[in-house]
């Protein structure tokens, strides 16, 4: 047997290669560079890699290749759009991470131990969060580009494993953070198992792990039991990642426990990657079996919207509230998958980009509201925020209105396009459910606005810190994107329209 070296199109893979190379360099830096130099160097490497990688994405625009890495990786419009979005989100996430205040000085030290205190006092902080984030970004870029189930699984793990660790890095309330990390890890491992199980059955059905092979096998028919079991298990794995009900239970705990910059990154970028992969799987591989999965996914979409919107009402913690809101948004995004038309793909891409920025901004803003022991996420203590810092309250209100889908914000255009796609595909039930759950969701978004603007502060221990340049930049960019995409979405809509074709 002859062994042929795989033909790799390094040019087409460049965006990911840059990020993975930087991640490896960052690991080495973490091991060998002195503690003082580490943090600035890591930040420089990370930002540099993101910028370089983004430049590669721009260079590749218009490229369509199914053979970038021996049929395993695809480079096409949706992939590049999602990679670009992920990189932009990552850029600002790194800026948030750079305000190192949220992270444990030594994640390996036992909470409350002398090592921990010593590390805090001497300022000898570990900065492993940078390489971890870089690996996660790399995985997120590979996930929507993967063209076979094995690559999908590898990408899924590459993006997930660093996230599990990052969720446990919080400096304050470390036990809560570690609990969140463990929970995330266990449930994540569980869902990975489901994913793999499904992949195995789909291989059994199609005799092929590539998405194209599965598509051909579906159109030519085969053992339907294998197909169904495979689709169900694979979907469970994916739905877990996107945080759809009833697989959403990890979301609020992890969002709450993780350091807020990590939550921001995770909430914004993981959605992009996971939905990117889900869109490709359902559109390309499983499109032919639409009648088998459509009823189930419709039910899940409706359930997800309702669960997210209704349970969010009862939340008293702003991070948990946004977690449930993200669940509701996962439901809206599922309608884009259900549409199964080009309209749906375009709408999903736009929605992911706009939602990503708004989410990033909202979590970045949460880092500013503090008392002496750190961030204050209890909503009751946000009461009267507008009185003390009107600008912060106003920007947060803008993000909330965008989440609620009020016109002239990005969220509205996203909702409008995605529901239009769903209606176009004849799935009117999902549109009605979406509209009704938007009405429910409006209630808790508005309640927060009422709290901030119309109630008097009861205690004065909560302060709004003056944001660092990094955080400030992130918040402003997010706010401007949120408004700009709502008022003048044409450039992005046009870009999305020109990119929204899956290469098979």
């Amino acid at each position: 047997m002859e062994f042929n070296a795989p033909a790799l199109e390094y040019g087409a893979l460049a965006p990911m290669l840059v990020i993975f190379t930087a991640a490896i360099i960052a690991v080495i830096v973490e091991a060998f560079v002195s503690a003082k130099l580490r943090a600035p160097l890591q930040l420089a490497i990370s930002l540099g890699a993101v910028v370089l990688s983004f430049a590669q994405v721009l260079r590749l625009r218009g490229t369509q290749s199914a053979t970038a890495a021996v049929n395993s990786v695809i480079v096409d419009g949706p992939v590049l759009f999602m990679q670009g979005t992920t990189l932009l989100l990552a850029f600002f996430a790194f800026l948030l991470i750079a305000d190192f205040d949220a992270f444990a000085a030594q994640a390996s030290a036992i909470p409350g131990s002398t090592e921990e205190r010593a590390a805090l006092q001497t300022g000898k902080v570990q900065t492993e969060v940078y390489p971890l984030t870089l690996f996660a970004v790399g995985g997120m870029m590979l996930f929507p580009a993967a063209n076979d189930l094995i690559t999908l699984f590898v990408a899924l793990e590459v993006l997930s494993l660093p996230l599990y660790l990052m969720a446990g890095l919080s400096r304050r309330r470390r036990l809560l953070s570690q609990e969140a990390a463990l929970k995330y890890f266990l449930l994540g491992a569980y869902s990975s198992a489901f994913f793999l199980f499904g992949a195995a059955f789909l291989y059994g059905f199609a005799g092929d792990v590539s998405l194209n092979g599965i598509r051909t096998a579906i159109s030519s028919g085969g053992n339907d039991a294998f197909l169904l079991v495979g689709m169900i298990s694979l979907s469970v794995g994916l739905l877990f990642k996107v945080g759809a009900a009833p697989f959403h239970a990890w979301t609020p705990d992890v969002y709450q426990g993780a350091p807020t910059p990590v939550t921001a990154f995770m909430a914004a970028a993981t959605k992009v990657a996971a939905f990117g992969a889900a869109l490709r799987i359902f559109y390309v591989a499983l499109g032919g079996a639409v009648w088998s999965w459509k009823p189930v996914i419709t039910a899940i979409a409706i359930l997800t919207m309702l669960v997210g919107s209704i349970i969010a009402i009862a939340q008293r913690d702003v991070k948990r509230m946004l977690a449930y809101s993200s669940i509701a948004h996962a439901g809206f995004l599922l309608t884009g998958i259900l549409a199964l038309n080009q309209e749906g793909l375009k709408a999903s891409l736009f929605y992911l980009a706009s939602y990503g920025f708004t989410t990033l901004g909202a979590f970045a803003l949460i880092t500013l509201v503090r008392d002496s022991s750190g961030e204050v996420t209890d909503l009751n203590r946000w009461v009267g925020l507008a009185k003390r810092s009107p600008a912060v309250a106003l920007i947060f209100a803008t993000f909330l209105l965008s989440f609620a889908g009020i016109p002239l914000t990005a969220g509205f255009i996203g909702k409008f396009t995605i529901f239009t796609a769903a209606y176009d595909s004849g799935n009117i039930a999902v549109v009605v459910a979406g509209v009704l759950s938007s009405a429910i969701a409006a209630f808790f978004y508005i309640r927060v606005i009422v709290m901030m603007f119309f109630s008097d502060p009861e205690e004065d221990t909560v302060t709004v810190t003056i944001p660092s340049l990094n955080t400030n930049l992130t918040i402003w960019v997010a706010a401007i994107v949120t408004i700009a995409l709502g008022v003048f979405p044409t450039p992005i809509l046009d870009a999305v329209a020109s990119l929204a074709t899956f290469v098979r």
Partner: protein
Amino acid sequence: MNLLTSMGALPLLGSLLIAFLPAANSKLIKQVALAISLLVAGVGISAALAFDTAKSGFQYVERYSWIPSLGINYQLGVDGISLILILLSVILVPIVIVAGWNESENGRFSVKTFYILMLILETMMIGVFAATDVFLFYIFFEAMLVPVYFLIGGYGTEARQAAAVKFLLYSLFGGLLMLASIIGIFVISGNQGGRSFDIGVLSTLTIDSTTQNFLFLGFFIAFAIKAPLWPMHTWLPDAAKSATPGTSVLLLGVLDKVGTFGMIRYCVELFPEASKTFTPIIITLSVISILYGAFLAIGQKDIKGLIAFTSISHFGFITMGIFAMTSQGNSGATLYMLNHGFSTAALFLTAGWMMSRRGSSTIAEFGGLQRVTPLLAWSFFIAGMSSLALPGLSSFVSEFLVLVGTYTRYPVAAIIATFGIVLAALYILIPVQKALHGPTTPGNENLPDLNKREIVAIAPVIAVIIALGFYPKPALDIINPAAQATIEKAGFTDPAPLVGGDK
């Protein structure tokens, strides 16, 4: 000439200007706000004078592509119906500013914020009536909620926050249902020759009747909440009781008209067949609203609650006139919107002055005002008479037209609705008797009468009420062609009047 855009942009620019004024100088802020609103009113009146009443289509049309990939245009234009409502809005704003000169003082937010919100609201009001692109309309319809919400929640009386939230949630709920319908009709237009939001294009679509019924309901429920029609009215009394008198004038006088305006422009014109299907139900709801509002108004002890419930009764008349599907009914309904705007303004403003003088809103507390403050009492009296449609005052003409227009098609409903007039006499005359003519309630002896500013504010309103009562022709000239066109577009013809006894 982009007349409508200029008129709409003026208040917005004005609010920007106010944002840069020093917050401490509240007098300057008020003066600037007033000057801007007067300027806008001037533009509005000149637009009305230059309006060609012989044409029935849209005039002052503007059209620019906004989001081409979604077929969304920035598209404005007015016909008689929308022009009248814009005119109402731009005239009421300066009056409200003069009348409520001090009502922004004790709010949660600053005086400056009040006038910024007020002027932004004016832009939205002009936009919502002038938009001829459904998407643009929706944006104004929803965006309008934000300034109103802050105006109610920031400057009203005790329960203002709850009222503001209730208002917002009701409206958002309706708006989202409408959004579903807008998406529906947008997709249908895409299947019939290109996606569009242009109401001219949308009204030519052929939609099967089931779909049409659902789409109609999405729009109608949104508008019925806004208007408000029984049983979707419960937010209105709360909001009206909590808001400042000036905000209430704009809320009941103009914003609620967006609902009835929407019924004409969107429900009837876009879904004529579904309108026909639902007409019996809607007429029934209207009659219930007329009587229910009137009965509850009679029982009110609070003067703001009284005005709110009379409005619910009046909106019943307007809705009935619209869905009677006759040109008289439609003209009457539109004229009713105009007249109701002015008579409600007069009622709310005078009631507001009574309340601020007495420090109470209970009707029984105002005894004897006729002797103590004759001007104030007379103003309230005339406003009340207009509200009960006394012949010679403006509301009479419109109520008469609505009833005549309805009678030719739905005689039973028209006859029952006539009882609403009798009840109106009760709900107006009882408080007039209690509040104005009764024995002077202790503590009222030294209340001051209207000052010059208040006279300046109320005089034009009363002048309009009387003028349109005797000579409604100018308004009807503007309205009639548009009303006629609406009925024709919906595929109705007026029933021939039955003359003589031989059938």
